[in-house]
């Protein structure tokens, strides 16, 4: 949720105050938004001044998916019944929505922190799996079970098969829109560790 949403809610609160004092909804919107630099808001004012009904004039703003849209829809719809009463009640509604917007912004910040953590975990996962992949020939030589077959040759890069799905799921969980970042980071970490670590094991 962006700060323009908070700004718009504050402006709508001003609209409601004016309307509660008996000014019409259309006049209140024009007075509040006429200095606005936002294209949609300027368009709305222009349409109202041209005589287009408020309900149709605000169409550009109500297409946005935010809390200010809810308040705007409420004001426009209820103003037809009783503008003064609707505005009085909507003032509390605006405070509540502002609180929700603030909560949502907090959540967005937490989400970003979690995304960063998931990217770090993906990188570490790539590195650790690369080390185990590189150590696979050594680990395979351990006789942990009776009658184990001789260790087949195992290419060090096979571990990537396990890293990519895990990094993808981490990405899907924490940042569904940018899951590829987790995959890229884990693959890079895997490649780097494999590049530097595998020759040491081969030498050993």
């Amino acid at each position, binding site marked *: 949720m962006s700060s323009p949403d908070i700004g718009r809610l504050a402006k709508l609160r001003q609209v409601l105050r004016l309307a509660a004092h008996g000014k019409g909804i259309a006049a209140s919107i024009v007075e509040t938004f006429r200095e606005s630099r936002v294209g949609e808001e300027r368009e709305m004012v222009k349409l109202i001044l041209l005589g287009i009904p408020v309900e149709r004039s605000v169409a550009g703003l109500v297409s946005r998916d935010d809390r200010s849209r809810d308040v705007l*829809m409420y004001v426009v719809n*209820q103003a037809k*019944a009783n503008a003064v009463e609707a505005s009085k009640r909507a003032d*509390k509604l605006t405070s509540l929505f502002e609180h929700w917007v603030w909560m949502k912004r907090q959540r967005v910040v937490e989400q970003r922190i979690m995304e960063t953590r998931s990217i770090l975990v993906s990188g570490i996962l790539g590195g650790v799996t690369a080390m185990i992949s590189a150590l696979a020939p050594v680990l*395979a030589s*351990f006789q942990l079970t009776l009658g184990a077959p001789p260790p087949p040759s*195992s290419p060090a890069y096979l571990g990537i098969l*396990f890293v990519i*799905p895990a990094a993808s*799921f981490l990405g899907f969980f924490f940042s569904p829109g940018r899951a590829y970042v987790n995959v890229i980071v884990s693959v890079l970490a895997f490649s780097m560790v494999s590049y530097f670590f595998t020759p040491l094991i081969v030498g050993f």
Partner: protein
Amino acid sequence: MKTSSWDALGLDRRRMSALVVLVSCSVGSAVTLATYHILGQLAVVLGAIVALGSGYAVAALPRRSVERSAIRQAGESPALAAAASVYLQSSGSKSKTLLMIGSEEPRLSALLGELRRNVLLGFDPAEAYVRLGGRVESESVSKILGSVVRARGERLADEGEELEGIVTGSLSREETKFPVFLTISFFLPIMLMLLAAIGHHTDPVSMVSLTFLELVVLDLALALSSTERARLAA
């Protein structure tokens, strides 16, 4: 497992049960078959656990849908309460108020449509509301509609307590599930790599089988862990 959400969505219990059994058996069998040559008898146990988990995930899908709907309804309830109050005060009529209020949440919108139809058919608002049979998912919305149809002068307001409660509960549950998912995603590939290396399962067939097992387990973990995230994003 609560199956009341199946009824709320009008799903046939027998068909839904059959679907759950079919999906869980398919996933369980696939995991058992894919990992039997690597894990032996243990693959059957693993298959059974995965089958149980996937059965639960499928059976809980309707409940998640109902919960998302309830959250959206709870989010709309303050505006709905304010609107109903204004309409009730302006028109002085319970029936007119019911005819005027609306919602953008599809399920609530359909219910309000049904309510309006019953009112237009001549039912008393209270009776029309009773005929809905308590199908409103949100407690707040249910209270608001109940207040409108009774209209005994009580103040119609909603401060969003239900939504805040749901959000707080979801955040707590998410805090529990977040480390679980992180641990599974981090350690599962490492464990599988170790299993492949120590157990000499590095041939292509075994590696593909283990990757398949990893995908199934991660998908299951994601399905069970992401409920709260989906709910909070609603």
